């Protein structure tokens, strides 16, 4: 009972917060902090409960599936909820400096907080939902709040970016919806569990799965559908970018994983997994190359997201299809999930760093940031730590993730995946080295062109970056937690 209460709180609290911030915008920041704290506590509570008693399942309104909607929290969703709760909490703390204006209410000062909270609610809703149509509604909630966040700074480029983002996302939603409709037509149910038990490889299922995958890939910005991501993520205000880049694509990815590993693993043939893995690999290479040639910090970080999201799809050939029943499947799957989590932490840290740099230097042109580490050593350090995690260097979470995936790649003889994983790491070194180097360089003019930033403000990105690192050092617990509710019973261990 308490765990289903926690499940309630995890969605209910941010929704409540959403309403409160709309009517009581003066206290929005406090409300947001309290709300995300509640969410985090609830998520941790759920984690404890899940690791003690296994996955938590609850039917809303007392109506069991297929008539009603069921929510479930297993290890995977709990981990995602903890990380998103933590990120939102930190981002909220950070944003107090940017979106709280004393005196009269301002546009962005009003809009940011409800959007942030409803984004969190939508994320959590996605992480626990077992109903395909409910997921559609959650996705719309997520998309609309995310798009609105992109427009917060009101610049023309941001509006354009938001518009493009919206178009891609709407197309993705609608394809997903068509898939869900076809599933209902076939099974008379939208519940993952009900559908998963009666998968029969009919045409409707294949078409539905394909449509949903395509729609989700559009939302996840899988190469070549990533065109919307860099302008949107670099155009949004940094706290928004932090959430958009680290969490929002993960939601659609999360459902892709659910779809192919929980609901219809039987349908995941090798051509599909290869296609997804191949697109992931292409994303790694292409995103990294683009990141290398960017001249703005936020664009570098945004293209880095394109590349890093590619890793997530390499999980499919390593753990899905024919590999699903193999012993290395567990490692690859867990590695992929850990990567998603550590990327979330590292990427949000990076965007917050970028935000502080922008406030200090009034631009994120790489060249203009020369020597900024002298003014903001803590932020530069946080950026570097986050970079280390993105590169997959030990002892960060990124390393453990890549280590697990590489181990699987070698065990399965998937040389090409191993190559892509490594190449991505090296390319990441190339594109992240440049900003780090520029930050640490001595400024060209001896004068102090940077506005000093309060130390407390700089703590926010550092906390997230340290989180990414500690996800690696303390990966024992997350690893164990992720295994709970994992459908395929393959061996655990590295």
């Amino acid at each position, binding site marked *: 009972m308490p765990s289903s209460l926690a499940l309630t709180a995890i969605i209910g609290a941010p929704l409540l917060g959403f309403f409160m911030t709309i009517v009581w915008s003066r206290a929005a920041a406090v409300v947001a902090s309290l709300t995300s704290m509640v969410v985090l506590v609830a998520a941790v509570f759920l984690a404890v409960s899940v690791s003690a008693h296994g996955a938590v399942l609850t039917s809303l309104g007392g109506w069991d599936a297929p008539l009603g909607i069921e929510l479930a929290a297993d290890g995977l969703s709990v981990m995602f909820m903890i990380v998103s709760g933590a990120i939102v909490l930190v981002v909220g703390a950070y944003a107090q400096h940017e979106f709280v204006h004393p005196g009269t209410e301002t546009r962005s000062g009003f809009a940011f907080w409800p959007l942030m909270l409803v984004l969190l609610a939508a994320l959590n809703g996605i992480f626990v939902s077992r109903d395909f149509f409910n997921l559609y509604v959650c996705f719309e909630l997520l998309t609309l709040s995310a798009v609105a966040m992109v427009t917060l700074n009101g610049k023309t480029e941001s509006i354009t970016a938001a518009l493009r983002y919206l178009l891609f996302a709407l197309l993705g939603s609608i*394809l997903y919806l068509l898939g869900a409709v076809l599933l209902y037509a076939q099974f008379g149910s939208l519940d993952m569990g009900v559908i998963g038990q009666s998968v029969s490889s009919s045409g409707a299922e294949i078409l539905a*799965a*394909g*449509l949903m995958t*395509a729609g989700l890939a559009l939302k996840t910005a899988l190469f070549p559908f990533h*065109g919307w991501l860099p302008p949107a993520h670099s155009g949004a205000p940094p706290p928004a970018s932090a959430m958009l880049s680290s969490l929002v694509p993960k939601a659609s990815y999360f459902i892709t994983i659910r779809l192919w590993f929980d609901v219809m693993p039987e349908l995941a*043939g090798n051509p599909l997994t290869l*296609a997804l893995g191949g697109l992931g690999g292409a994303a790694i290479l292409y995103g990294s190359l*683009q990141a290398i040639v960017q001249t703005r910090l936020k664009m570098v970080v945004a293209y880095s997201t394109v590349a890093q999201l590619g890793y997530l799809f390499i999980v499919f050939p390593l753990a899905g299809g024919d590999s699903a029943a193999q012993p290395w499947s567990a490692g690859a799957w867990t590695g992929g999930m850990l990567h998603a989590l550590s990327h979330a932490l590292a990427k949000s840290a990076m965007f917050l760093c970028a935000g502080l740099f922008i406030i200090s230097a009034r631009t994120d042109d790489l060249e203009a940031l020369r020597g900024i580490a002298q003014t903001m050593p803590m932020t530069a350090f946080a950026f570097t730590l986050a970079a280390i995690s993105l590169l997959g260097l030990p002892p960060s979470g990124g390393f453990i993730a890549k280590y697990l995936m590489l181990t699987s790649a070698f065990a399965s003889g998937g040389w090409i995946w191993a190559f892509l994983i490594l190449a991505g790491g090296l390319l990441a070194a190339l594109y992240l080295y440049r900003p780090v180097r520029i930050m640490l360089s001595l400024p060209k003019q001896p004068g102090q062109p940077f506005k000093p930033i309060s130390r407390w403000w700089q703590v926010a990105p550092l906390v997230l970056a340290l989180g990414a690192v500690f996800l690696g050092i303390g990966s024992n617990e997350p690893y164990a937690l992720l295994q709970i509710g994992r459908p395929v019973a393959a061996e655990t261990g590295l």
Partner: protein
Amino acid sequence: MIDLQVSGPLFPLFVLIWPLVLGLAASLPSVRSNAIVLLPLAPLPALVLAVVGPLNIPTEAGILLLGVTLNLDINGTLFLGAISGLWCLGGIFALGYMRMTPNPAVFAGFWCLTLSGNLGVVLSQDAGSFYVSFAAVSLAAYFLVVHERTERALYAGRIYIFLAVVGEALLLIGLLIGVDAANSMSIAKIRVALADAPQAGWAVFCLIGGLGIKAGLVPLHVWLPLAHPAAPTPASAVLSGAIVKAGIIGFIQFLPDGTALWPSMLLVLGLAGTYGAVFLGLGQTNPKAILAYSTISQMGLVIAVIGVGHLTGNTVAAYGAAALYCAHHGLAKGALFMSVGMVGKSGRTFMPFVLFVTGLMAASIAGAPFAGGALAKSAIKTLFEDWALLLVTLSGAGTTLLLARFLMTIASNHGPEPDKRPSALMSVPWFVAVVAALLVPWVLVDRYSDLSVPYLLSTGALWDASWPVALGLVCFFVGLRLLPGGFRVAEGDIAGPLVKSVAAVKRMLAAVPEPTVPTIKGLDHIVSASRTQAAERRLLQLAPICVAALILAMLMFANI
């Protein structure tokens, strides 16, 4: 307690350490300016050891280096005595000769270090300490060569150090192979093992090269005629009289019994040196250079002796004879170098005496009867037969010729003040060296050869000793008549081309590029940011197509 692992008499160890202690003492501020005083003291323990030292009781010190073993055998005693004696005399001579020299402490320090190495070469019975000693004597001597810091001295020093290092390297190879073959550091075992080890050929070749450089083996001799003139006279004396012998000692220590190609090679190269050096020496104008070539010539003879000893299988006799010959040559050549110093400090009135004594010494080296040199020469001649015997005998003529040229050169080199006489500190050691050179072989000849004094005083022996000298004198005067101006050979003959070729190789190497990390600047052109970004953003139009393709792929390939 730490086990020092020392056994046997400690005195030989003291012999080696004492000069080092003195050398370090030279760097003390209070001693620094009078450091030359230390020079004669340094070899005294060695001299004592040579005279009274027990034979064949090894000293072992396990923790030093790779385990030091010292020993003195019968040949070693002779070498030790001659070498330490000469160093002692040279040291006293230096007291007189180098009173006002700059940097006396540096000179004294390295003098002592060189000495210690020189003595170590004699005493060492293990490859490690031999190598250490050999390196000490080779490399520290560099500082004696360049002491005067003139262009010429520095040039000579460069050539010297180059060859010395090459010699070290070659010696190292030889030692490595030897140690491996013997599975021991002991020189005796190495010598035995090298007789039939697989890579013995390489080892012996490298040993001959490395040691031969020190011994002035042709064609590795080029450093001698450069270094000797450049060094201060006492240093030249020990260089030529004592240091050069380190190579010979090495030959005696390391060369295995065997009938391979190399004994013949030694014989041929030795004799080639004997005669070639005479020819090259005659082309010199600097008296010290002439003496240097003479040393090359004499050492050639010794090397030939060693070669022939191995050829005939009679190494014991050959080594004894070689030791005797070296002992005499060391003292005599030392005396001759001191003569050069004496001449510089002598006025016209004192010159005849100097010249007379010098001539006596030259005659001794040439092997004139009654002189110690004749005995030494007789001792080595017993080993040769046929044409080789003739060549060895005839070499006396060559030596006479060369040393006559030397005498002629120094005769006009006296100092400007007519009545000037060198100090006693110079003339006494000089005189002692002369006397020792003349007498020592008489005392020792029966211990180091089969010859006896009465035989040596027989007319046959006297005639054998006399005619090459006479022939040499005749040749000298004929030559003077025919070629009054003489001819010129550059000091160090082939050193010049050697230097140039090394420089050329260095230039060639500089042209090879160095690997670096490739830069990524070109990438901007490959991945044109603006164009590709525009394209990727427009992909919205293609999205349905891609979706359709994805679904098609699934339809075709799904696990139905």
